[in-house]
């Protein structure tokens, strides 16, 4: 997705993993994804740069759809759509 498309997304749940290092953001994603329904979108906030690679890998493995990342001031906002 393009940045403009991502900016338009209203996440159904926001998981704040800022300030945590590996594997904090992935653990937070695992805990958070069960709180949204299939088809809904979870946003993960992270300061750990590795999350930009790790969250897509996590989504692929767990069968969810990674939508993209937006760079905010001092952190990243990543979007995942729950598939099943």
């Amino acid at each position: 997705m393009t940045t403009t498309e991502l900016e338009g997304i209203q996440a159904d749940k926001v998981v704040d993993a800022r300030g945590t290092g590996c594997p904090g953001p992935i653990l937070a994603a695992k805990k958070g994804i069960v709180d949204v329904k299939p088809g809904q979108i979870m946003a993960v906030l992270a300061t750990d740069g590795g999350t930009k690679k790790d969250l897509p890998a996590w989504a692929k493995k767990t069968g969810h759809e990674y939508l993209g990342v937006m760079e905010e001031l001092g952190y990243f906002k990543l979007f995942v759509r729950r598939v099943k």
Partner: protein
Amino acid sequence: METTKKTIILFSGDLDKALAAFIIANGAAAMGDEVTMFFTFWGLNVLRKTAAPHHQKRFLQGMFGGMMPHGPGQLGLSKMNFGGLGANMMRKVMRQQGVTSLEELIQSARDQGIKLIACSMSMDVLGFQEDELIEGLEFAGVATFLGEADEANVNLFI
């Protein structure tokens, strides 16, 4: 048979290596994998309670037990430990960087249902009773571990 199960042997009682093992284990569990960790020899020190019940032991076992780290808070680094100073500096830097502590990673491993197996032979050698180690462990030997490893697609020795 398609499997994504992971097995990890923690042989080392070093803080850095234990951290690596628990980060991989927690990451794998977060990815939806079944994970089994097998703790043997120095790795058993990671599972020790800080304040464990006292037992009558053989002289050498008592000496080993007294001198080895009592739990994750007392582990040293495999390099640049400087008598524990290095380990404390590492813990401080990790706190500053927001890296999850070993204590939290162990708790997270239990919360995620990671199977923790303590090697009973090593426990006998080092003189550890079951109640000197943290709760929620299984106690078994090499055959149990190999049975678990047979079902896994990744096995690490750390």
